């Protein structure tokens, strides 16, 4: 571990002097106000954690996008997950954030407290190992996430196939960024003028999907990372494009992202998954915005194995979480924020996940803004 030069790597991208220099550059290029959306929940958190919003000129408004996979997972899928997790022979595995997200009745924590076998894993491959070690149990992995987690989720299915496991399935819940950007930009109420594209999604997918979107909606997009210097550089490049009136796509995260992305990972996603319509919590169904298992791998689909199609939940139509996830409202504009709705007793998913915009606002003290 000592030979990995991480500390300098990190501190270099957290250099206060460099960050202030870039902020100054942004200031110099600004002639009017702009509303930018950071797509990823990880970016929202970094902005809050380092207080970058306090440093930016007033003309720049950062709007928090739908980039928290926990927050956008539909109530229906969570209810299906809870139902599966309650089955006596099932070991239900999930990333930790998902355990506190409320379904219609209860959450995975309460299923565990009632005796359900719910385990937190850090990688879908851990779930495959659990399946191998527990042949008498059905092991189900809750496959949430954006394009970032999709390769690992695909890898888990391929690994289970290779091992000949018949007791491993996933509950497919992956969502895709480009259809969500389409949905936001085509909304008549949209006021987003530029996008900070999610760096880690682009590390997998590249950014070849973005130029047509930027052109269609006349909205510039810049691939942006997660460290303070990455973020202000992404903002600087987006502002420059906006001020120059250019709706093109830039890359301010070139140390991790190429135009084509990770080809091997993309191939794996294509092999295992296919695009399907998906319901986003608080937003509704976005066509072709999710990943379902393709025909050849449907035997690994927990929804089919446990026949969860019968579980249907209708979601509230006026949940403010939806407006927050689309950037139409800020968390602090919700009347329940910080009073009735806190991370301890969340009323909505954005307050639950460590990547949720409401939780970021709360944790980093944006109670009054």
């Amino acid at each position: 571990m000592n030979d990995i030069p991480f500390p300098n790597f990190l501190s270099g991208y957290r250099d206060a002097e460099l960050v202030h220099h870039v902020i100054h550059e942004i200031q110099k290029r600004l002639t009017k106000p702009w509303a930018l959306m950071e797509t990823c929940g990880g970016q929202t958190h970094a902005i809050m954690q380092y207080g970058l919003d306090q440093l930016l000129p007033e003309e720049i408004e950062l709007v928090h996008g739908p980039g928290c996979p926990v927050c956008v997972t539909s109530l229906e899928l969570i209810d299906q997950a809870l139902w599966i997790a309650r089955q006596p022979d099932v070991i239900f595995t999930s990333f930790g954030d998902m355990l506190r997200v409320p379904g219609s009745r209860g959450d995975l924590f309460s299923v565990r407290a009632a005796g359900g076998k719910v385990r937190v894993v850090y990688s879908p491959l851990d779930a495959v190992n659990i399946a191998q070690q527990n042949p008498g149990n059905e092991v189900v992995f809750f496959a949430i996430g954006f394009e970032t987690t999709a390769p690992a989720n695909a890898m888990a299915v391929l690994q289970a196939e290779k091992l000949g496991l018949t007791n491993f399935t996933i509950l497919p819940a992956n969502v895709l960024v480009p259809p969500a950007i389409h949905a936001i930009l085509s909304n008549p109420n949209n006021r987003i003028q530029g996008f900070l594209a999610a760096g880690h999604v682009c590390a997998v997918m590249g950014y070849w999907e973005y130029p047509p979107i930027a052109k269609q909606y006349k909205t510039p997009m810049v691939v942006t990372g997660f460290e303070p210097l990455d973020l202000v550089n992404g903002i600087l490049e987006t502002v420059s494009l906006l001020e120059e009136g250019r709706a093109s796509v830039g890359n301010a995260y070139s140390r991790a992202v190429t135009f084509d992305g990770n080809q091997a990972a993309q191939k794996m996603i294509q092999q295992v998954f296919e695009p399907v319509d998906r319901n986003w919590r608080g937003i509704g169904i976005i066509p072709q915005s999710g990943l379902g298992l393709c025909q050849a791998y449907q035997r690994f689909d927990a929804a089919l194995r446990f026949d969860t199609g019968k579980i249907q939940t209708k979601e509230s139509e006026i949940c403010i979480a939806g407006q927050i996830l689309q950037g139409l409202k800020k968390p602090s504009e919700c009347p329940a924020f910080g009073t009735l709705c806190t991370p301890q007793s969340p009323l909505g998913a954005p307050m639950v996940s460590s990547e949720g915009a409401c939780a970021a606002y709360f944790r980093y003290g944006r109670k009054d803004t």
Partner: protein
Amino acid sequence: MTQEKQEPISMQGPVCPLPHQQTETVVIGHGSGGQMTRDLIHNIFQTRIGNAYLAEGNDAARIDLHGMDGSQLAVSTDSHVVFPLFYPGGNIGRLSICGTVNDVAMLGAQPAFLTAGFILEEGFSMEALSRIVDSMAEACRESDIQIVAGDTKVVEKGKADGLFINTTGYGIIPNGRMIGGQYAKPGDAVLISGSLGDHGIAVLQARGELGFESQIQSDVAPLNHMIEDLLIAVPDVHVLRDPTRGGLSTTLKEIACQSQVSIHLEEETIPVKPDVQIACEMLGFDPLYMANEGKVIVILPEKHAEKALLTLRKSPYGVMSTRIGAVFQENPEEVLLHTTFGTTRILDFLSGEILPRIC
């Protein structure tokens, strides 16, 4: 948000999907040491068995002995359920002594006696038990304390996870020492005796769930000698508190609430080892919320800060002691972190269980 604009919220209504309120059953977050633990204590325990001693909200109770010399008794109890039982830098045995010794020492008491209760699961290895009790003996020698009463219970296989240990500690607070979370005062300096997060990461790593290896060792240690040396050199100390579950942030927030002050921290002065920082980055944890078992927060008048630091640094457990912030009167109950960027961030109680970020 103004009062006029505020609309009434129906808890049953369709504002946001209404989650399960964690009031019907105990869930794991109730043991986190953060807000849920506070709620549990407040709602279940303090309403039923509350009294003036518990209401002080410190790690140990202060009991008047009505003796001639004015000294007082400090009592603290702690159950240890760490998993796994052995981890780099320590095990449940060493932890069960150090945890309670430290809680007693946080009132400025000299820990003298311990009791120990063991709950053993049928089938537990005698060899492992011997090693654990050896570690307890060693920690007792190091902290000059004796176990004077004990209890052993065995439960059926599957009814306990190997071994749980409860220890209760007793110590004498010399006359005139008034140290506690309620005594922080504006103008005080805030010191920490070393780097943060070592214990939390060491235990997580020992679970084998991290998917990578590191050299991080738990900091579990008895701090009573270091604290006694400090109090002899600098008697005028206001607060001592070990930032265990919930980490530095949660502990300082508790102190800010108890003392009705605000605490301001300078981010660049807070010591975190590079290995711990990297592990936290990879897992989405914040070192300011990670558990420590061999660190103490010292709050005392600014004029004594330098001398206190020099004294702490003489102990093997305080070599990296440093000043991390100060106490103010304005905005009581607030803990503010001044970042290296010149921005500020509010620190709060840990909420729920520490969970890794997922992407």
